[in-house]
């Protein structure tokens, strides 16, 4: 395989909490590659570390271990944090309104990345910005408005246009549709696809919405408590997932069907995501896993390739993949006994 566009190797991101006394590994040993033109979805619950990955890839925060390379060149290490904005990665944030300075007119926010990177002069910057507005489907008359005068969907398109002005190779969408109406979400997701065709962009789509992830992503990584638990092609994850957590996420997806027509085997996870300051021993998911055994508490499951390009971190990945029921019915142990 040729050199990936972006490669994250064994990345760890540590925060100091409780006045510096405790360490929190928000991301703990995550590795992934992103090919040119590919879309990678990262899904997981709140607090699993998805957005932290996004910020690290942008060099908005320092990593404590590992490295990030872009086209084979090392750009971020713990010793030399990357310079944001100059290696072809840009980000779209969750809240389209908060991402725009309320006291700047749209045009002023739009030309800012060009100003910072010293591209063009005042009038050519304006032209570039207006052209990009047209590409994301925004009337140029809105350029002289203030953010509070526009709708959420319009603002998110403006944020996308602004991020694209620096011609990034990778666009990170950090829950970029979560704050929008469903109909606008669809527009924005379709816009991603159009932009991907036009600019040859690669996407990292961070979301907790499975439908969003599977719609736009070629591959999906499932994250739990700072680690990837499964990574594979979207279709494989939907039909032959090899991790109980992925199965639980899939079955938690609401179905627009009457109850009698819904699939019976809905797996509801109990409890909260544990504190990342003191993660469970062995497999981090074991405290909520319906099929956890003593082995899971003793040993962290290795990251194994189940089929080409499909990885899972579960001791029972084969059985889960083969469709083992996850209600604990074939096993005397249940959630309580593992604790």
């Amino acid at each position, binding site marked *: 395989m040729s050199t990936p566009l972006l490669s994250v190797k064994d990345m760890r991101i540590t925060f100091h909490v409780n006045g510096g006394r405790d360490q929190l590994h928000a991301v703990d040993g995550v590795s992934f590659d992103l090919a040119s033109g590919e879309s990678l979805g990262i899904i997981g619950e709140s607090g699993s570390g998805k957005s932290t990955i996004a*910020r690290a890839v*942008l060099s*908005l925060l320092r990593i404590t271990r590992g490295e990030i390379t872009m086209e084979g060149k090392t750009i971020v290490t713990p010793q030399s944090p990357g*310079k*944001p*904005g*100059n290696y072809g990665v*840009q*980000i779209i*944030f969750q*809240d389209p309104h*908060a*991402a*725009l*300075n*309320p*006291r*700047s007119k749209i045009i002023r*926010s739009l030309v*800012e*990345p060009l100003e*910072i*990177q010293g591209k063009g002069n005042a009038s050519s910057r304006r032209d570039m910005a207006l052209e990009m507005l047209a*590409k*994301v*489907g*925004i*009337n140029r*008359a*809105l350029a002289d408005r*203030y953010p*509070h005068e*526009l*709708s959420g*969907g*319009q603002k998110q398109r403006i*944020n996308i246009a*602004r991020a694209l002005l*620096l011609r990034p190779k990778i666009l990170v969408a950090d829950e970029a549709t979560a704050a929008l109406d469903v109909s*606008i979400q669809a*527009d924005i997701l*379709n*816009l991603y696809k*159009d932009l991907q*065709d*036009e600019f040859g962009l690669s996407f990292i789509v961070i979301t907790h919405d499975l439908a969003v992830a599977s719609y736009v992503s070629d591959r999906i990584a499932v994250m739990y408590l700072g680690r990837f638990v499964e990574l594979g092609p979207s279709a494989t994850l939907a039909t032959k997932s090899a991790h109980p957590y992925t199965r639980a996420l899939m079955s938690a997806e609401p179905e627009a069907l009457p109850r009698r027509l819904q699939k019976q085997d809905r797996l509801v996870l109990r409890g909260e995501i544990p504190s990342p300051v003191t993660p469970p021993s062995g497999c981090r998911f074991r405290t909520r896993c319906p099929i956890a055994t003593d082995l899971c508490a003793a040993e962290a499951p290795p990251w194994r390739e189940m089929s080409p390009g499909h990885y899972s971190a579960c001791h029972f990945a084969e059985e889960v993949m083969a469709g083992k029921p996850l209600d604990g019915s074939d096993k005397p142990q249940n959630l309580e006994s593992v604790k």
Partner: protein
Amino acid sequence: MSVLTNEPPAVKKDRVPTKFGWLIRQPKAVLSVTFLTVLIVIAILAPWIMPYDPIAPNFGALLQPPMPGHWLGTDDLGRDVVSRLMAGAGPSLLSAFASVGLAVVLGVPFGLLAGFMGGWTDTIISRVLDAMLSFPTILFAVGIAGILGPSMTTGLVALGVLFAPQFARLVRARTLVVRRELFVDASRAFGASNLRIIMRHILPNAIQSAIVHAGLLLAIALLAESSLSFLGFGVQPPGTSWGAMLARAYAYMEVNPFLMFPPGIAILLTALSFNGLGETLRVLLDPQSPKA
């Protein structure tokens, strides 16, 4: 390319609100601005339009009540009160503007720095501010004026230095909030420097309360200058300011109580106008407050 276009709705062109249009419909703003403009014009033109010499005594007409020729009467040395009000307007306004201006120039950068950098920088700056804020302003100004020798310049420098922590505090508090805003992260993601983030994103979003406070402080500075002059630490005789006039009037309260009203009312109206001006400026500079 096929982008779904669901916007924008046509821009309504029948009503174009302008800032000036909004301004002239605010009675408080119109009154404040008009009053201050007239006052500044008078202060500048005072040497030419004063009916009498404000420092030449006239012992034939001491402590006169208002009458034709002397519309606001004369003071204890027979000097025309109208002329002295005009002559005192300049020093009074100047010291108010200069001390508040100095306070803004000193206070805002420290507030931005403390709020933006956090950590030790913030701790040190904040403790110094606490220490300064715990001094009684006027008393400290009197102390400084006493050490450096009484003059208008030392008085207003002392006031400026003592007002600065208030601005630093206000701006620091807002900076702490604004620096965590998403648009700051967005700017950083484009590679913006700290200086750019502070000037472009933090300052415009953190300065509002400082603007309103400047309006309030101008009024307070005017009164503080009066107090300093009243205590003899401001404008020195035979020069004059409203505060100095008030001080002299006080001495003759029982002989001619009317003498206190002209400078007192001038101070009051000017202070009110400064307040109105600060509030108006804040609304004017906020794109989100309705101006229609």
